[in-house]
């Protein structure tokens, strides 16, 4: 045991106590920065430090990061707090912060502070397009009586049209491809080892994921509330299998906010979350941001993807076309619903729309709940037919450079 250092001044507090206070302050600051650490994790850190005191600051950094951190997306915030408490603005950690794995930084003082949204629906889950972004929220209004009836019809229509795949988990069934040996054995025990009845196991159908991407930019201003309401009915019909995002100049995951049972409550929650409503359009950038996040890509894989947008892209349309093509490859079917397509004279001839038509399985017109209901009822035909039929159906001159 090392000899105890003589105290220079009796009023000076014990350095050990000081260090402990400092550490405690650090842990409290982490919680303040939105990184709650479980007591077991804190105990791990303290145990580690007590057993081997870290030789230098880098070692302390790694001790703290490995015991406390739970998710790589929390890393920038963790580094900030660590720097503030131990490095005082000194050089950053040895590891460079990760590149754009989870989108950019959180929007400062993001919306919905008073009503902390669930983790999944963090505001600012996306990149911000610099030039066009505006930050304001919007009240989406109330749902009237006539809309409620349509929404009820929509909610009833969704389950029947959602595509299904055989589930991986087997369940008892009258006729199945496998014997339930476990069940047979349990029943046999009751009958002195005699197998009287055999039960079979089958793979029941499991609905595919439904991914809805809603354009909230200014050009769709009058349709946005109804499009959100349509998405709300889908969420109510298949809560566990539906994901909803909005995009204008940024990408926002609104599944959790929109999942509130009452439509008006859900829309209010969404309006506090979506800060780019009625702003500019950056469809390509928003879709690229979506596809750049592996967790989001996992939501699109094998899913029925529905994009609600007019497809009016400013500037270069190449990123949007590329992103649509990838989305189409990832998903089971890619359906594009545009308010413009409701008009009988509409032809997808804007350069962006014409170029991406080859990737779409269906291009339909949806501008309100009534047209949404019509399109939902049209989905089974889209889902059962071959892929990439949109181009043939709209029979426009084939855009140059595409093969399909």
């Amino acid at each position, binding site marked *: 045991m090392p000899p105890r250092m003589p105290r220079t001044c009796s009023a000076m507090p014990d350095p050990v106590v000081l260090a402990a206070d400092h550490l405690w302050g650090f842990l409290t600051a982490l919680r303040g920065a939105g990184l709650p650490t*479980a007591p*077991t*994790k804190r105990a*791990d850190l303290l*145990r*580690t430090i007590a*057993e081997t005191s870290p030789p230098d600051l*880098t*070692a302390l950094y*790694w*001790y703290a*990061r*490995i*015991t406390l*951190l*739970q*998710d*790589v997306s929390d*890393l920038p915030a963790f580094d900030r707090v660590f720097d503030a408490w131990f490095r005082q603005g000194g050089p950053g950690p*040895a*590891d*460079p912060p*990760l590149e754009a*794995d989870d989108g950019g930084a959180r929007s400062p003082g993001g919306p919905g502070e008073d009503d902390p949204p669930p983790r*999944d629906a963090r505001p600012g889950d996306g990149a911000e397009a610099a030039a066009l972004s505006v930050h304001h929220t919007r009240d989406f209004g109330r749902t009237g009586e006539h809309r409620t009836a349509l929404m009820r019809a929509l909610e009833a229509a969704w389950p029947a049209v959602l595509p299904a795949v055989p*589930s*991986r*988990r087997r369940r008892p069934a009258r006729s199945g491809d496998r014997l339930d*040996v*476990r069940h*047979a*054995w349990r029943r*046999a*025990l009751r009958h*002195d*080892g005699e*197998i009287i009845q055999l039960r079979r196991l089958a793979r029941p159908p499991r609905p595919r994921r439904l991914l809805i991407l809603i354009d909230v930019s200014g050009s769709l201003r009058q349709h946005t509330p109804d499009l959100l309401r349509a998405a709300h009915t889908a969420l109510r019909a298949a809560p566990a299998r539906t994901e909803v995002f909005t995009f204008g100049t940024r990408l926002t995951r609104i599944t959790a906010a929109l999942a509130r049972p009452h439509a008006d409550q859900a829309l209010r929650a969404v309006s506090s979350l979506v800060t780019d409503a009625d702003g500019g359009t950056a469809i390509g950038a928003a879709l690229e941001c979506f596809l750049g996040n*592996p*967790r989001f*890509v*996992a939501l699109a894989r094998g899913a029925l993807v529905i994009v609600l947008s007019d497809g009016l892209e400013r500037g270069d349309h190449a990123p949007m076309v*590329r992103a649509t093509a*990838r989305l189409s490859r990832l998903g089971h079917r890619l359906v594009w619903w545009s308010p413009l397509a409701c008009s009988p004279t509409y032809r997808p001839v804007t350069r962006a729309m014409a170029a991406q038509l080859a990737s779409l399985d269906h291009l339909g017109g949806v501008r309100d709940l009534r047209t949404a209901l019509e399109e939902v009822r049209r989905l089974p035909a889209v889902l059962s037919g071959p892929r990439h039929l949109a181009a043939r159906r709209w029979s426009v001159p084939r855009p140059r450079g595409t093969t399909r």
Partner: protein
Amino acid sequence: MTTDGAGLLRERELAAALEAQGYFADEGLCTAIHLALRLGRPLLLEGEPGVGKTEVASVLSRVTGLDLIRLQCFEGLDSGQALYEWDYPKQLLQVRVAESRGQDVGDLYREEFLLRRPLLRAVRAEQGAVLLIDEIDRADSEFEAFLLEFLGDFQITIPELGTVRARTPPIVVLTSNRTRELHDALKRRCLYHWIAFPEPDRERAILRMAVPGLAEQAAAGLVGAVRRVRRLPLLKRPGIAESVEWGRGAMALAEGGSPWPVALRRALGLLIKDEEDTRLLLAHADEVFGDAPAHAEDVFGDA
């Protein structure tokens, strides 16, 4: 744990032991493994595909001399495949045998009728074991619940038998590709480390070790090229595994007489495995392959 085990508790020796097995870990990963061994906690590794997450478990098993038990996760994985299952046909036969001999059936829920799946095997290993739970994000999120008791206390409760506790806690490594978010309850029980792409020096060391005969300068050029490729907006950025494969492929082509820059381009299919990415890369070919040595003598080192 073997006598090596005590030595591994010291951080520097751990790094040396890993390196002796051909695994070059940076400081963060070393600390993570070291803490996992010392605190006896499962280690959850996340990172881009191909940065050597799975390899950590197999190198740990070689270093400690313990058996590697692997559980590959997939959608629909259930407790019967991961923890244990009763051997029902065997139990039925036992009933029949007892009946024909006129004996008492006895207890049918005995150890001998238990099929040990990976987690139970890890708990039952006398000397301890290295358990790899690979790609946990591929399993349904419900499956994580089955893991909680095991990860927290290294024990499994079998209703008919009671609780089975590990005599020697296994070393547990979980990997995830982050295709979905894991539950907090699971993360709380684990130490967490994100494996980033390696720094140039470390990747060069890995390449030199994995591709025998590759000269220092060529290795540096290769690493530089791979780093520039990773900066492009690709669908799938190449990991260490891909850059090693690329080095090996280019080496084989160069031995066959191709000039090195040509060999690099011809072996590109080992680095990039997506048509769109290949096209993007070829559009940036000049800046990516800019400094590849042109002469064969610069490529081959002393093997």
